[in-house]
C-alpha cells in the first residue's frame, strides 16, 4: 500500500518515537487477534495504523492517551480495509451465544473457575480459546483483560456504549471459562477434589 508521507516537526518525531512507537507490540498482538492470527496482515495493519498516526500527529496532544488513540486508529483501519478483503466476513458464533443464553436463563451465568483444574495447563489452550470466541467478545477481553483498558476507553475504541462493554465482557469471560473447562475435560484433567 503506497503511503503519502507527511513531514512532521522534529518535536513531533521525538514524541512519536517516545510515546507512540513503544505500543507496537500491543498493537501487533491486537492486530493478530483481529486478523485471525495472520502475521502478514497484522504487520500491514500495524504499519497502516502508524502511518495514519503520522499523518495526524498534529491532532495528537502530548500527555493524552496514545495507546487508546492508536488502538482506535488500528480498529478503524481494520474495519475499513480488512473486513472488505476477508473471504468470510467476521461472523458471530451463534451456537456459543445461544448455548450461553440458555445457561443464563437457568441462572448459571457465573461459572466457577476452578484453579485445580486449570493449574496444569501447559500449552496454548488460553490463546486457542480466546481465538475461538466470536470477534466482538474476543475484542473486549483482549482490550480489558490483556491490554488493561478501562470501560470508557474500550467504549471509545470499539465505538459501543459502556453498558455494552460491560455486558460483552461478562459474556466473553463466561464463554472463555466454558471453553477452558471443555479443554480441561477433553484432555482428561482430573478433578482433584475428593
Amino acid at each position, binding site marked *: 500500500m503506497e503511503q503519502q508521507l507527511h513531514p*512532521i516537526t522534529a518535536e513531533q518525531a521525538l514524541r512519536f518515537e517516545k510515546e507512540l512507537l513503544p505500543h507496537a507490540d500491543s498493537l*501487533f498482538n491486537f492486530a493478530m487477534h483481529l486478523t485471525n492470527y495472520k502475521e502478514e496482515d497484522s504487520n500491514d495493519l500495524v504499519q497502516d495504523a502508524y502511518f495514519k498516526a503520522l499523518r495526524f500527529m498534529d491532532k495528537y496532544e502530548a500527555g493524552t492517551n496514545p495507546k487508546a488513540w492508536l488502538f482506535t486508529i488500528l480498529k478503524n483501519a481494520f474495519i475499513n480495509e480488512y473486513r472488505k478483503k476477508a473471504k468470510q466476513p467476521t461472523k458471530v458464533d451463534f451456537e456459543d451465544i445461544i448455548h450461553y443464553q440458555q445457561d443464563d436463563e437457568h*441462572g448459571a451465568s*457465573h461459572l466457577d473457575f476452578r*484453579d485445580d483444574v486449570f493449574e496444569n495447563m501447559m500449552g496454548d*489452550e488460553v490463546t486457542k480459546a480466546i481465538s475461538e470466541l466470536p470477534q466482538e467478545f474476543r475484542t473486549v*477481553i483482549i482490550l480489558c483483560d*490483556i491490554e488493561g483498558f478501562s470501560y470508557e476507553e474500550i467504549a471509545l475504541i470499539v465505538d459501543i456504549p459502556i453498558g455494552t462493554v460491560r455486558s460483552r465482557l461478562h459474556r466473553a*469471560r463466561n464463554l472463555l*471459562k466454558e471453553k477452558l473447562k471443555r479443554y480441561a475435560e477433553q484432555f482428561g484433567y482430573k478433578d482433584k477434589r475428593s
Partner: protein
Amino acid sequence: MSLTNNHQELFQKVSLYLDNALSAEEQSALMQEINSDPHTLELLSKEQRFRDFVKARTERRSASPALIQAIREKIRIAPA
C-alpha cells in the same frame, strides 16, 4: 431474592471492582462485605486468579524489528 440472584449480583460487584468500574462508595461497601463474609473474599480471589491466569497464558509476540524499521523509515522531518 433467590440465592442464585444474590450470587449473581455479588459476582457482578466483584467483577466491576476488578475492572475498576465501581465508585468509591460502592468499593467501600464491597470491602465491608468482604471483611464480613469469607465467601465474598473467596469469590474475589477466584476471579482475580482467573484473570491473572488468562493474562499470563495468552500468547504475546513482539512486533518484528523489520516492522519497526519500516515504520521509522516513513518518518519525514519537515525543514525548520
